[in-house]
């Protein structure tokens, strides 16, 4: 048992009492110091509670470090898309930038994601080139808001969609190569998803990392932030405590701290705190480090966290382990080209163009695990998937390929006549331009499943994305519980809430990360250095 030391700080108490003359300042200043409450107003009793983590040394009042071990302009927590984009921009402003990554490898969820992001245009006008109809930032915004049940903060969504083409251009300039395809995915009313040729997020993280490092930013692996230093509720962020192996040290931050540490899908306790239905039995697509402690550290210095209960399932994960491997991407990107989802009975059970939450719930209710995506050679060609990628997926038993639907049904162990009937019916819907069963919006880009070879991939929902998180404004500043920005504290990506609302549309995470990462990094780098 550790004894908690309580240090008498009469100075703080008296200051807080002085501040009672202004209601707003008493509330802002003193709650974090633990000075508010009847005991203090009556000026009896010692210090009240504050939010320092229990069990840590001097938990009652954490003393600021007496000396700092080093000084860095901009510290970024997390090395995924948002952290790397922020690092590239901050270093571009001439700041000394260090990314702290607690895992032994860089890239977080970003390096293992599907390598897809959304934009309504780019400088090469890919959508026009592929003759895939119209799009606009307004439409993109509307889709995102609708997909998020209008829980999204509209001003944040607007920043994301308006900056999406710029972000896309920059990624391409940085060296991200895109496939010659632009899928339409669930919840989107346009063809707007760009795909990295690698078919995985590494195709995006590597180029941004290269740029960031070229500009002088450095990544420190295996280095975990274990506290954020702030003097009081009016103070800017002053630094961070970091833990490497078991050794703690303190970094003074001269310009700003950027939190780009991702969500908490891998922390069963935390996700069940906000959504008790997400029981431990669920698998998860995330990397093991997605455990959300930075959200708690930020809350402990007064940051507001919003909408933490909105935790999304990915409907197409590998059924046994929950990982989002390369074959788990086709069921999601193929929907705009006529790929269908069927259950164990060989029947469709949802509109394939539905949002992730709707599809996931329909799968769970479909009767048996798993469900399957059925598609054809033609659809694979539309997705510009390299042949080797399919062959690898088949070798791993993730993709089935047959010449006829009947054979495919045999491989999957589902009734062949039912599957044939389902496909015949869906082909007719495409021909007639109307889905009589699930009212899927049929487009002329959808291909009937007539000519083989045919393919199937098994899929099942897994916990995927935390839509909620820290509250930020359009400048990526973290907002405190009183509604004011915390000075020199920025956040971007999945660690934030309010951009995706209750349900994120596929491909919006990368756009969110790159757009807000750049804003956070630019603003952090522009902060006037503290003396």
């Amino acid at each position, binding site marked *: 048992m550790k004894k908690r030391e309580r240090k008498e700080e009469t100075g703080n108490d008296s200051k807080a009492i002085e501040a009672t003359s202004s209601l707003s300042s008493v509330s802002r200043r003193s709650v974090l110091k633990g000075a508010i409450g009847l005991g203090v107003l009556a000026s009896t009793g010692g210090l009240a509670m504050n939010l320092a983590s229990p069990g840590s040394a001097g938990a009652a009042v954490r003393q600021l470090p007496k000396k700092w071990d080093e000084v860095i302009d901009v510290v970024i927590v997390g090395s995924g898309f948002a952290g790397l984009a922020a690092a590239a921009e901050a270093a571009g402003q001439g700041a000394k930038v260090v990314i702290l990554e607690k895992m032994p490898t860089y890239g977080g969820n970003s390096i293992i994601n599907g390598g897809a992001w959304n934009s309504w245009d780019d400088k090469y006008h890919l959508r026009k080139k592929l003759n895939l109809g119209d799009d606009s930032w307004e439409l993109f915004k509307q889709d995102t808001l609708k997909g998020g049940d209008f829980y999204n903060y509209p001003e944040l969504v607007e920043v994301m969609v308006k900056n999406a083409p710029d972000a896309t251009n920059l990624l391409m300039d940085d060296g991200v190569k895109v496939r010659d395809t632009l899928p339409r995915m669930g919840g989107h009313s346009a063809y707007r998803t760009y795909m990295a040729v690698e078919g995985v997020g590494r195709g995006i993280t590597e180029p941004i990392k290269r740029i960031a490092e070229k500009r002088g930013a450095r990544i420190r692996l295996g280095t975990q932030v274990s506290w954020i230093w702030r003097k009081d509720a009016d103070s800017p962020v002053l630094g961070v405590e970091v833990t490497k192996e078991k050794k703690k040290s303190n970094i003074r931050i001269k310009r700003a701290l950027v939190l780009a540490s991702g969500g908490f899908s891998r922390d069963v306790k935390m996700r069940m705190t906000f959504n008790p239905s997400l029981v431990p039995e669920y698998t998860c697509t995330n990397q*093991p480090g997605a455990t959300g402690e930075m959200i708690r550290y930020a809350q402990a210095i007064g940051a507001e966290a919003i909408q933490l209960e909105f935790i999304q399932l990915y409907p197409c994960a590998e059924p046994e382990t929950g990982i989002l491997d390369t074959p788990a991407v086709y069921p999601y990107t193929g929907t705009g080209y006529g790929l269908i989802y069927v259950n164990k009975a060989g029947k469709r059970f949802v509109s394939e163009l539905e949002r992730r939450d709707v599809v996931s719930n329909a799968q769970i209710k479909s009767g048996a695990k798993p469900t399957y995506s059925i598609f054809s050679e033609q659809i694979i060609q539309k997705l510009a998937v390299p042949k080797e990628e399919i062959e690898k997926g088949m070798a791993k038993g993730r993709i089935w390929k047959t010449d006829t639907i009947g054979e495919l049904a045999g491989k999957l162990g589902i009734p062949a006549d039912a599957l044939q009937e389902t496909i015949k019916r869906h082909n007719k819907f495409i021909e007639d331009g109307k889905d009589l069963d699930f009212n899927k919006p049929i487009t002329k880009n959808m291909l009937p499943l007539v000519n083989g070879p045919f393919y199937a991939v098994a899929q099942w929902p897994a916990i995927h994305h935390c839509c909620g998180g820290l509250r930020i404004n359009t400048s990526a500043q973290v907002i405190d519980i009183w509604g004011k920005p915390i000075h020199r504290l920025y956040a971007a990506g999945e660690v934030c809430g309010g951009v995706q609302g209750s349900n994120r549309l596929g491909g919006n995470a990368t756009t969110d990360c790159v757009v807000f990462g750049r804003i956070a990094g630019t603003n952090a780098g522009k902060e006037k250095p503290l003396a």
Partner: protein
Amino acid sequence: MKKTALMITMSAFFGLVYLLAGNITLEAAKPAKSKEAAAPRQSCVTCHPDFAPVLPKGHPPAAGKDIGACTTCHKPDVSGKAAANAFSARLHRAHEGKTDCVLCHTWVPGKSFGLLGQKLTWGKPSKEEMALLKQVSGTWATSTYMDAGHGKKNVTCMGCHGKALPAEGDSVENDRCLECHGPLEKLQAKTAPKDLPDRNPHKSHLGDIGCTVCHKGHKESAVYCLQCHPNFQMKLK
């Protein structure tokens, strides 16, 4: 609790032995620290009055009282090359846990760490750092971890860590590992599964990852891949 009780019993017992021995004062029965300080400086000849029995066959006779007997021929290596050093390794392994470092090494805490009679320094370990070095050199000599495997192959601290003595939290760069275990392409070819060649632990989809992500020097190694891919058949040799 148990440990403390044991220690009390033991010190009481030894105290009694010393008293019964009669020619030792009460002061000498105090904790080992003060005893050590009071004791005359030991040297190689305290245990090896004659070096011949511990020298390899055909080794010319060695003369001297301390490590100088060896270093006249076996020049200490300060190059920090990633290579085996049989002399250094054998000497360390043979004495691990039996003698104190400063029997051969010179050490001014926080200032220097060298070798008796030699003008060289491998770093400036503090008292805490030295405690860690002692602990780690213990696992290097006897553990079931990767460090002991290197120890048996005559690779000492600097073989992996380079010129300077390692400090807490130090890692080893891939290039050093590959000096002996490379080139990377060869290593990758060796570990490529026949059926699923892209499920190769040395060709990760996470890019250029550190060898030390899986291969830990001084603690239990573990296949990192399995954290997300529990079904993979992968084992560390």
